């Protein structure tokens, strides 16, 4: 499989999520109540992946996402600059997820087998067979990483400007080790893919 199948596609909308979030928040601050709906629809998937990365069950993850939005509506004055809205939401979601996780020891890690069951019919009709093959291959290699790596990579995949201090606290890691760990995890995944002939 060629490199482009696994990791070569560009993600044009990547940076614009944060820009659009800032624009929505600015409009909302200006009194446009529909802008909050847009912000919710834009950022809810990002929040979902962030809290799921901490291993919350579906029900607890949904609760954490709802709580994050309720907290925003009640504490919007805490967001001093519109550009900080994305970071504020993710930090709040991470804090909630971490609190839930540390309170309930029964919460299981995201059910791997259950997730794998989503693969064959994922992305429905638009996904080409090749894309599905690429995802299946990547998933197999991601699963060989330790839990900390899997968690960190999922978080940074959805948050291109992570707040390292908050991340360090919620992952129980020293702040200085986030960057090196992230690189180490990516290197590990890359070499696993290379060995498997996927890159």
């Amino acid at each position, binding site marked *: 499989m060629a490199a482009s199948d*696994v*990791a*070569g*596609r*560009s*993600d*044009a909308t*990547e*940076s614009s999520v944060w820009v659009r979030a800032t624009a929505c928040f600015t409009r909302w601050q200006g009194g446009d109540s529909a802008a*909050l*709906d847009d912000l*919710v*629809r834009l950022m*809810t*998937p990002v929040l*979902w*992946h962030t809290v*799921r990365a901490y291993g919350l*069950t*579906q*029900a*607890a993850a*949904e*609760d*954490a*996402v*709802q*709580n994050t*939005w*309720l*907290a925003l*509506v*009640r504490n919007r004055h805490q967001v001093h600059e519109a550009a900080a809205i994305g970071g504020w939401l993710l930090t709040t979601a991470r804090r*909630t997820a971490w*609190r*839930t996780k540390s*309170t*309930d020891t*029964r*919460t299981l890690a995201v059910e791997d087998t259950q*997730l*794998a069951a*989503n*693969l064959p019919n*994922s*992305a429905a009709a638009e*996904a080409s067979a090749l894309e599905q093959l*690429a*995802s299946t291959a*990547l*998933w197999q290699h*991601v699963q060989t990483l330790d839990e900390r790596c899997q968690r960190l*990579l*999922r978080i*940074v*995949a*959805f948050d*291109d400007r992570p707040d390292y201090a908050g991340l360090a606290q919620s992952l129980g890691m020293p702040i200085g080790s986030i960057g090196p760990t992230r690189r180490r995890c*990516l290197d590990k*995944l890359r070499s696993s893919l290379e060995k498997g002939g996927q890159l």
Partner: protein
Amino acid sequence: MNAEERDPLLVAIKRLYSELDPPPQGLSERVLVALAVDDLELEYELLTMVHRSQQLAGVRGGDDQKLVMEFTAAGITVMLRISPVDAKHRRIDGWVTRATDAKDSPVELTASLWQEHGTATSPVGTHGRFEFASVPSGLTRLDLVADSDSAFRTTLFEI
């Protein structure tokens, strides 16, 4: 970091999880409902769901499924056991546990259940118990309101 500098592997991981574990259908809409029915004048603390599980109570399965949920906030824990009354109604048994310092000066709490078609209330007994014998199934939110100005609120959950 802008899009150009982003590791393509991270982009692939993002796509992978988007396919593998997408948000549940209607999550954004439920968030919007939760925001719409959140009366901002009431000051409360958010209760966080820390546990939700199905318990099989009997051998018949299906209708006998009990749902157990646990919520917490600083100094308070709420357990809910939800059992089916019939296909469209649920019984809710609740237990509130407060931190020891709050126990010394007990405050009366009222449990209030918000649902799409109305609200129901039940006093919380001296041992922290409360119940709703039969309420419609569907989106639900629990408020615990004290006489004083302290109140606790869950997010919306399906029963």
